[in-house]
Protein backbone atom coordinates (compact mmCIF):
# COMPACT_ATOMS: atom_id res chain seq x y z
CA UNK A 1 0.00 0.00 0.00
CA UNK A 2 2.67 2.49 1.06
CA UNK A 3 4.84 1.30 -1.82
CA UNK A 4 1.96 1.79 -4.22
CA UNK A 5 1.59 5.38 -3.05
CA UNK A 6 5.34 5.97 -3.24
CA UNK A 7 5.40 4.67 -6.82
CA UNK A 8 2.53 6.97 -7.79
CA UNK A 9 4.20 9.86 -6.01
CA UNK A 10 7.44 9.44 -7.91
CA UNK A 11 5.79 8.67 -11.25
CA UNK A 12 3.53 11.73 -11.12
CA UNK A 13 6.35 14.03 -9.99
CA UNK A 14 8.80 12.92 -12.66
CA UNK A 15 6.11 12.59 -15.33
CA UNK A 16 4.80 16.11 -14.77
CA UNK A 17 8.29 17.62 -14.64
CA UNK A 18 9.07 15.85 -17.93
CA UNK A 19 5.97 17.47 -19.39
CA UNK A 20 7.37 20.77 -18.15
CA UNK A 21 10.37 20.15 -20.40
CA UNK A 22 8.04 19.47 -23.34
CA UNK A 23 6.29 22.78 -22.69
CA UNK A 24 9.66 24.57 -22.32
CA UNK A 25 8.85 25.99 -18.88
CA UNK A 26 11.54 28.18 -17.31
CA UNK A 27 14.25 26.07 -15.73
CA UNK A 28 13.79 27.40 -12.21
CA UNK A 29 10.11 26.35 -12.17
CA UNK A 30 10.56 22.76 -13.30
CA UNK A 31 10.49 21.27 -9.80
CA UNK A 32 7.45 23.33 -8.82
CA UNK A 33 5.60 22.12 -11.92
CA UNK A 34 6.35 18.56 -10.86
CA UNK A 35 5.06 19.28 -7.36
CA UNK A 36 1.81 20.75 -8.71
CA UNK A 37 1.22 17.67 -10.84
CA UNK A 38 2.11 15.37 -7.95
CA UNK A 39 -0.28 17.10 -5.54
CA UNK A 40 -3.13 16.93 -8.03
CA UNK A 41 -2.54 13.32 -8.94
CA UNK A 42 -2.13 12.21 -5.31
CA UNK A 43 -5.47 13.75 -4.35
CA UNK A 44 -7.06 12.16 -7.41
CA UNK A 45 -5.53 8.77 -6.60
CA UNK A 46 -6.54 8.89 -2.94
CA UNK A 47 -10.11 9.90 -3.78
CA UNK A 48 -10.32 7.14 -6.39
CA UNK A 49 -9.18 4.62 -3.79
CA UNK A 50 -11.93 5.87 -1.48
CA UNK A 51 -14.25 5.15 -4.44
CA UNK A 52 -15.32 8.74 -4.81
CA UNK A 53 -16.91 9.43 -8.20
CA UNK A 54 -14.17 10.03 -10.77
CA UNK A 55 -15.66 13.31 -12.00
CA UNK A 56 -15.71 14.74 -8.48
CA UNK A 57 -12.19 13.50 -7.79
CA UNK A 58 -10.98 15.13 -11.01
CA UNK A 59 -12.76 18.37 -10.20
CA UNK A 60 -11.25 18.53 -6.71
CA UNK A 61 -7.76 17.75 -8.01
CA UNK A 62 -7.95 20.36 -10.76
CA UNK A 63 -9.12 22.89 -8.18
CA UNK A 64 -6.16 22.04 -5.95
CA UNK A 65 -3.71 22.28 -8.84
CA UNK A 66 -5.05 25.68 -9.88
CA UNK A 67 -4.92 27.03 -6.31
CA UNK A 68 -1.32 25.89 -5.92
CA UNK A 69 -0.49 27.30 -9.35
CA UNK A 70 -1.89 30.72 -8.47
CA UNK A 71 0.10 30.78 -5.25
CA UNK A 72 3.32 29.77 -6.99
CA UNK A 73 2.73 32.19 -9.88
CA UNK A 74 2.66 35.10 -7.41
CA UNK A 75 5.63 33.73 -5.47
CA UNK A 76 7.87 33.18 -8.53
CA UNK A 77 6.48 35.98 -10.74
CA UNK A 78 5.80 33.64 -13.64
CA UNK A 79 2.55 33.37 -15.65
CA UNK A 80 0.12 31.02 -13.93
CA UNK A 81 -0.29 28.97 -17.13
CA UNK A 82 3.17 27.49 -16.60
CA UNK A 83 2.04 25.64 -13.49
CA UNK A 84 -1.56 24.94 -14.47
CA UNK A 85 -0.71 23.37 -17.82
CA UNK A 86 1.83 20.99 -16.34
CA UNK A 87 -0.19 20.30 -13.20
CA UNK A 88 -3.40 19.16 -14.85
CA UNK A 89 -1.70 16.83 -17.34
CA UNK A 90 -2.01 13.76 -15.08
CA UNK A 91 -5.74 14.42 -14.77
CA UNK A 92 -6.43 14.46 -18.52
CA UNK A 93 -8.57 11.38 -19.27
CA UNK A 94 -6.20 10.02 -21.91
CA UNK A 95 -6.83 6.40 -21.05
CA UNK A 96 -10.58 6.75 -21.33
CA UNK A 97 -10.39 8.57 -24.65
CA UNK A 98 -8.14 5.78 -25.90
CA UNK A 99 -10.61 3.11 -24.76
CA UNK A 100 -13.39 4.95 -26.55
CA UNK A 101 -11.33 4.98 -29.73
CA UNK A 102 -10.58 1.28 -29.40
CA UNK A 103 -14.23 0.37 -28.96
CA UNK A 104 -15.12 2.46 -32.00
CA UNK A 105 -12.55 0.58 -34.06
CA UNK A 106 -14.03 -2.70 -32.87
CA UNK A 107 -17.46 -1.54 -34.09
CA UNK A 108 -18.75 -1.43 -30.51
CA UNK A 109 -20.23 2.04 -30.94
CA UNK A 110 -22.45 1.90 -27.87
CA UNK A 111 -19.51 1.42 -25.52
CA UNK A 112 -17.48 3.92 -27.51
CA UNK A 113 -20.07 6.66 -27.11
CA UNK A 114 -20.39 5.90 -23.40
CA UNK A 115 -16.67 6.14 -22.84
CA UNK A 116 -16.34 9.26 -24.97
CA UNK A 117 -19.12 10.95 -23.01
CA UNK A 118 -17.36 10.04 -19.77
CA UNK A 119 -14.04 11.41 -21.03
CA UNK A 120 -15.83 14.59 -22.06
CA UNK A 121 -17.36 14.86 -18.58
CA UNK A 122 -13.91 14.53 -17.00
CA UNK A 123 -12.46 17.25 -19.23
CA UNK A 124 -15.41 19.39 -18.16
CA UNK A 125 -14.63 18.60 -14.52
CA UNK A 126 -11.06 19.85 -15.02
CA UNK A 127 -12.41 23.03 -16.63
CA UNK A 128 -14.87 23.64 -13.80
CA UNK A 129 -12.11 23.08 -11.25
CA UNK A 130 -10.03 25.76 -12.97
CA UNK A 131 -13.02 28.13 -13.09
CA UNK A 132 -13.68 27.63 -9.38
CA UNK A 133 -10.13 28.54 -8.50
CA UNK A 134 -10.33 31.62 -10.70
CA UNK A 135 -13.49 32.67 -8.85
CA UNK A 136 -11.79 32.18 -5.47
CA UNK A 137 -8.85 34.26 -6.67
CA UNK A 138 -11.07 37.09 -7.86
CA UNK A 139 -13.02 37.17 -4.60
CA UNK A 140 -9.78 37.21 -2.63
CA UNK A 141 -8.38 39.97 -4.82
CA UNK A 142 -11.41 42.22 -4.49
CA UNK A 143 -11.54 41.58 -0.73
CA UNK A 144 -7.90 42.63 -0.46
CA UNK A 145 -8.53 45.71 -2.60
CA UNK A 146 -11.44 46.70 -0.35
CA UNK A 147 -9.26 46.29 2.74
CA UNK A 148 -6.50 48.43 1.32
CA UNK A 149 -8.79 51.01 -0.20
Amino acid at each position, binding site marked *: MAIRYLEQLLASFIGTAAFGV*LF*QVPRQTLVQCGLAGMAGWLLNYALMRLSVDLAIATWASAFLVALLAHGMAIRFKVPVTVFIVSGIIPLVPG*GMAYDAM*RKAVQNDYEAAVQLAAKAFMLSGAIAVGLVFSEVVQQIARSARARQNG
Partner: protein
Amino acid sequence: MQHSTEVSGAVAQVCLLAGKIMLENGGETYRVEDTMARIAASFGIQSSHSFVTPTGILFSIEGAEPATRLVRISQRSTDLSKVALVNEISRRIGQGEMTVTEAYGQLAAASRAKPVYSVHWQVAAAAIASGCFLLMYQGRLADVPAAVVAGGTGYYVAATVGRLLSIKFFAELLASFVIGLLSFLSVRSGFGRDLDLIMIGSVMPLVPGLLITNAVRDLMAGHLVSGISKGAEALLTAFAIGAGVALVLTLN
Protein backbone atom coordinates in the same frame (compact mmCIF):
# COMPACT_ATOMS: atom_id res chain seq x y z
CA MET B 1 4.89 63.34 -22.80
CA GLN B 2 4.30 64.66 -26.29
CA HIS B 3 2.89 62.20 -28.74
CA SER B 4 3.52 62.39 -32.42
CA THR B 5 2.19 59.87 -34.88
CA GLU B 6 5.65 58.40 -34.97
CA VAL B 7 5.62 57.70 -31.24
CA SER B 8 2.27 56.00 -31.24
CA GLY B 9 3.38 53.98 -34.25
CA ALA B 10 6.49 52.84 -32.40
CA VAL B 11 4.49 51.99 -29.29
CA ALA B 12 2.05 50.00 -31.37
CA GLN B 13 4.97 48.10 -32.82
CA VAL B 14 6.34 47.24 -29.37
CA CYS B 15 2.91 46.09 -28.20
CA LEU B 16 2.41 43.94 -31.27
CA LEU B 17 5.81 42.32 -30.97
CA ALA B 18 5.10 41.45 -27.34
CA GLY B 19 1.70 40.07 -28.28
CA LYS B 20 3.09 38.12 -31.21
CA ILE B 21 5.77 36.39 -29.14
CA MET B 22 3.27 35.45 -26.46
CA LEU B 23 0.68 34.14 -28.87
CA GLU B 24 3.19 32.14 -30.92
CA ASN B 25 4.52 30.42 -27.84
CA GLY B 26 1.35 29.38 -26.07
CA GLY B 27 0.14 32.40 -24.10
CA GLU B 28 -3.58 32.75 -23.42
CA THR B 29 -5.55 35.32 -25.40
CA TYR B 30 -6.53 37.38 -22.39
CA ARG B 31 -2.90 37.56 -21.26
CA VAL B 32 -1.87 38.81 -24.70
CA GLU B 33 -4.53 41.54 -24.70
CA ASP B 34 -3.78 42.49 -21.12
CA THR B 35 -0.04 42.73 -21.77
CA MET B 36 -0.48 44.89 -24.86
CA ALA B 37 -2.86 47.27 -23.07
CA ARG B 38 -0.47 47.53 -20.12
CA ILE B 39 2.56 48.27 -22.28
CA ALA B 40 0.62 50.95 -24.14
CA ALA B 41 -0.55 52.48 -20.86
CA SER B 42 2.96 52.59 -19.44
CA PHE B 43 4.07 54.54 -22.50
CA GLY B 44 1.34 57.04 -21.77
CA ILE B 45 -1.33 55.79 -24.16
CA GLN B 46 -4.44 55.31 -22.11
CA SER B 47 -6.84 54.11 -24.74
CA SER B 48 -5.96 51.18 -26.95
CA HIS B 49 -7.93 48.34 -28.46
CA SER B 50 -6.89 44.90 -29.49
CA PHE B 51 -8.49 41.97 -31.21
CA VAL B 52 -6.58 38.75 -30.69
CA THR B 53 -7.29 35.44 -32.37
CA PRO B 54 -4.99 32.43 -32.66
CA THR B 55 -4.09 33.43 -36.23
CA GLY B 56 -3.65 37.19 -35.98
CA ILE B 57 -3.58 40.30 -33.82
CA LEU B 58 -5.20 43.63 -34.62
CA PHE B 59 -4.08 46.49 -32.41
CA SER B 60 -5.06 50.13 -32.53
CA ILE B 61 -4.29 53.23 -30.54
CA GLU B 62 -6.91 55.92 -30.13
CA GLY B 63 -6.46 59.62 -29.59
CA ALA B 64 -5.06 62.58 -31.46
CA GLU B 65 -2.42 60.43 -33.21
CA PRO B 66 -4.12 57.15 -33.93
CA ALA B 67 -2.22 54.12 -35.15
CA THR B 68 -3.48 50.72 -36.23
CA ARG B 69 -1.38 47.68 -36.94
CA LEU B 70 -2.06 44.10 -37.86
CA VAL B 71 0.19 41.11 -37.45
CA ARG B 72 -0.35 37.62 -38.74
CA ILE B 73 0.49 34.60 -36.62
CA SER B 74 1.34 31.76 -38.93
CA GLN B 75 3.16 29.30 -36.73
CA ARG B 76 2.39 28.36 -33.17
CA SER B 77 4.44 26.22 -30.82
CA THR B 78 4.84 25.80 -27.09
CA ASP B 79 7.60 27.67 -25.31
CA LEU B 80 6.34 28.91 -21.98
CA SER B 81 9.76 30.33 -21.11
CA LYS B 82 9.29 32.98 -23.77
CA VAL B 83 5.84 33.82 -22.45
CA ALA B 84 7.38 34.25 -19.00
CA LEU B 85 10.18 36.35 -20.48
CA VAL B 86 7.78 38.74 -22.23
CA ASN B 87 5.75 38.92 -19.02
CA GLU B 88 8.90 39.98 -17.19
CA ILE B 89 9.80 42.60 -19.82
CA SER B 90 6.28 44.02 -19.72
CA ARG B 91 6.52 44.28 -15.93
CA ARG B 92 9.77 46.22 -16.25
CA ILE B 93 8.24 48.51 -18.86
CA GLY B 94 5.37 49.09 -16.42
CA GLN B 95 7.85 50.24 -13.79
CA GLY B 96 9.08 52.85 -16.25
CA GLU B 97 12.54 51.34 -16.58
CA MET B 98 12.65 51.36 -20.38
CA THR B 99 12.25 53.62 -23.37
CA VAL B 100 10.28 52.50 -26.40
CA THR B 101 13.44 51.66 -28.36
CA GLU B 102 14.96 49.72 -25.48
CA ALA B 103 11.75 47.77 -25.01
CA TYR B 104 11.66 46.88 -28.69
CA GLY B 105 15.27 45.72 -28.58
CA GLN B 106 14.67 43.52 -25.54
CA LEU B 107 11.57 41.99 -27.06
CA ALA B 108 13.35 41.31 -30.33
CA ALA B 109 16.12 39.57 -28.39
CA ALA B 110 13.51 37.54 -26.52
CA SER B 111 11.89 36.42 -29.77
CA ARG B 112 15.26 35.24 -31.08
CA ALA B 113 16.17 33.44 -27.84
CA LYS B 114 16.93 29.76 -28.20
CA PRO B 115 14.57 27.27 -26.55
CA VAL B 116 15.56 26.35 -22.99
CA TYR B 117 15.60 22.65 -23.78
CA SER B 118 16.89 21.24 -27.06
CA VAL B 119 15.05 18.62 -29.10
CA HIS B 120 17.20 15.87 -27.56
CA TRP B 121 16.13 16.85 -24.09
CA GLN B 122 12.53 16.95 -25.21
CA VAL B 123 12.70 13.48 -26.70
CA ALA B 124 14.27 12.20 -23.47
CA ALA B 125 11.56 13.95 -21.46
CA ALA B 126 8.84 12.44 -23.65
CA ALA B 127 10.34 8.99 -23.14
CA ILE B 128 10.46 9.44 -19.36
CA ALA B 129 6.96 10.90 -19.25
CA SER B 130 5.64 7.88 -21.17
CA GLY B 131 7.10 5.49 -18.61
CA CYS B 132 5.72 7.51 -15.71
CA PHE B 133 2.25 7.72 -17.22
CA LEU B 134 2.22 3.98 -17.77
CA LEU B 135 2.76 3.54 -14.03
CA MET B 136 0.09 6.13 -13.23
CA TYR B 137 -2.43 4.25 -15.33
CA GLN B 138 -1.69 1.23 -13.11
CA GLY B 139 0.65 -0.48 -15.54
CA ARG B 140 3.36 -2.93 -14.56
CA LEU B 141 6.95 -1.94 -13.94
CA ALA B 142 7.98 -4.55 -16.53
CA ASP B 143 6.17 -2.62 -19.28
CA VAL B 144 8.00 0.65 -18.60
CA PRO B 145 10.91 0.04 -21.04
CA ALA B 146 8.51 -0.61 -23.93
CA ALA B 147 6.61 2.61 -23.18
CA VAL B 148 9.85 4.58 -22.88
CA VAL B 149 11.04 3.39 -26.29
CA ALA B 150 7.68 3.88 -28.02
CA GLY B 151 7.01 7.27 -26.41
CA GLY B 152 10.47 8.66 -27.15
CA THR B 153 10.42 7.48 -30.77
CA GLY B 154 6.90 8.79 -31.27
CA TYR B 155 7.79 12.24 -30.00
CA TYR B 156 10.90 12.30 -32.16
CA VAL B 157 8.81 11.43 -35.21
CA ALA B 158 6.27 14.13 -34.37
CA ALA B 159 9.00 16.76 -33.88
CA THR B 160 10.86 15.85 -37.08
CA VAL B 161 7.82 15.55 -39.34
CA GLY B 162 6.36 18.70 -37.81
CA ARG B 163 9.50 20.59 -38.79
CA LEU B 164 9.68 19.19 -42.32
CA LEU B 165 6.01 19.48 -43.27
CA SER B 166 3.67 22.32 -42.59
CA ILE B 167 0.63 20.06 -42.47
CA LYS B 168 -0.09 20.15 -38.80
CA PHE B 169 -2.18 17.13 -37.96
CA PHE B 170 -0.26 14.71 -40.14
CA ALA B 171 2.75 14.75 -37.79
CA GLU B 172 0.59 13.63 -34.87
CA LEU B 173 -1.12 10.99 -36.98
CA LEU B 174 2.17 9.52 -38.15
CA ALA B 175 3.70 9.68 -34.67
CA SER B 176 0.82 7.89 -33.02
CA PHE B 177 0.88 5.30 -35.79
CA VAL B 178 4.59 4.69 -35.10
CA ILE B 179 3.86 4.47 -31.37
CA GLY B 180 1.09 1.99 -32.01
CA LEU B 181 3.28 -0.09 -34.27
CA LEU B 182 6.20 -0.15 -31.81
CA SER B 183 3.90 -1.10 -28.92
CA PHE B 184 2.30 -3.80 -31.03
CA LEU B 185 5.68 -5.23 -32.02
CA SER B 186 6.99 -5.09 -28.46
CA VAL B 187 3.98 -7.03 -27.20
CA ARG B 188 4.30 -9.54 -30.05
CA SER B 189 7.96 -10.13 -29.28
CA GLY B 190 7.30 -10.49 -25.56
CA PHE B 191 9.20 -7.31 -24.66
CA GLY B 192 6.03 -5.78 -23.23
CA ARG B 193 2.78 -7.25 -22.03
CA ASP B 194 -0.17 -4.89 -21.81
CA LEU B 195 -0.64 -3.36 -25.28
CA ASP B 196 -3.35 -0.88 -24.24
CA LEU B 197 -1.44 0.62 -21.34
CA ILE B 198 1.81 0.87 -23.29
CA MET B 199 0.03 2.75 -26.06
CA ILE B 200 -1.84 5.09 -23.69
CA GLY B 201 1.33 5.96 -21.80
CA SER B 202 3.31 6.56 -24.99
CA VAL B 203 0.79 8.83 -26.74
CA MET B 204 0.42 11.07 -23.68
CA PRO B 205 3.31 13.40 -24.72
CA LEU B 206 1.40 14.15 -27.94
CA VAL B 207 -1.86 15.00 -26.16
CA PRO B 208 -2.72 18.70 -26.69
CA GLY B 209 -2.85 19.55 -23.00
CA LEU B 210 -1.81 23.18 -23.38
CA LEU B 211 -4.40 23.81 -26.08
CA ILE B 212 -7.19 22.32 -24.00
CA THR B 213 -6.24 24.39 -20.96
CA ASN B 214 -5.92 27.60 -22.96
CA ALA B 215 -9.18 26.96 -24.79
CA VAL B 216 -10.97 26.67 -21.46
CA ARG B 217 -9.27 29.71 -20.00
CA ASP B 218 -10.05 31.77 -23.12
CA LEU B 219 -13.69 30.77 -23.05
CA MET B 220 -13.86 31.67 -19.36
CA ALA B 221 -12.44 35.11 -20.07
CA GLY B 222 -15.05 35.69 -22.78
CA HIS B 223 -12.74 35.27 -25.78
CA LEU B 224 -15.18 33.07 -27.58
CA VAL B 225 -13.54 33.14 -31.02
CA SER B 226 -10.11 32.13 -29.69
CA GLY B 227 -11.53 29.62 -27.24
CA ILE B 228 -13.55 27.81 -29.85
CA SER B 229 -10.80 27.77 -32.46
CA LYS B 230 -8.26 26.48 -29.94
CA GLY B 231 -10.79 23.87 -28.86
CA ALA B 232 -11.21 22.83 -32.49
CA GLU B 233 -7.45 22.57 -32.91
CA ALA B 234 -7.22 20.41 -29.78
CA LEU B 235 -10.05 18.22 -30.98
CA LEU B 236 -8.45 17.73 -34.40
CA THR B 237 -5.10 16.87 -32.80
CA ALA B 238 -6.77 14.37 -30.50
CA PHE B 239 -8.59 12.92 -33.49
CA ALA B 240 -5.33 12.57 -35.43
CA ILE B 241 -3.74 10.74 -32.49
CA GLY B 242 -6.77 8.50 -32.18
CA ALA B 243 -6.78 7.72 -35.89
CA GLY B 244 -3.10 6.72 -35.83
CA VAL B 245 -3.67 4.40 -32.91
CA ALA B 246 -6.84 3.04 -34.46
CA LEU B 247 -4.95 2.09 -37.62
CA VAL B 248 -2.71 -0.17 -35.57
CA LEU B 249 -5.61 -1.58 -33.58
CA THR B 250 -7.27 -2.76 -36.77
CA LEU B 251 -4.16 -4.90 -37.37
CA ASN B 252 -4.72 -6.60 -34.07
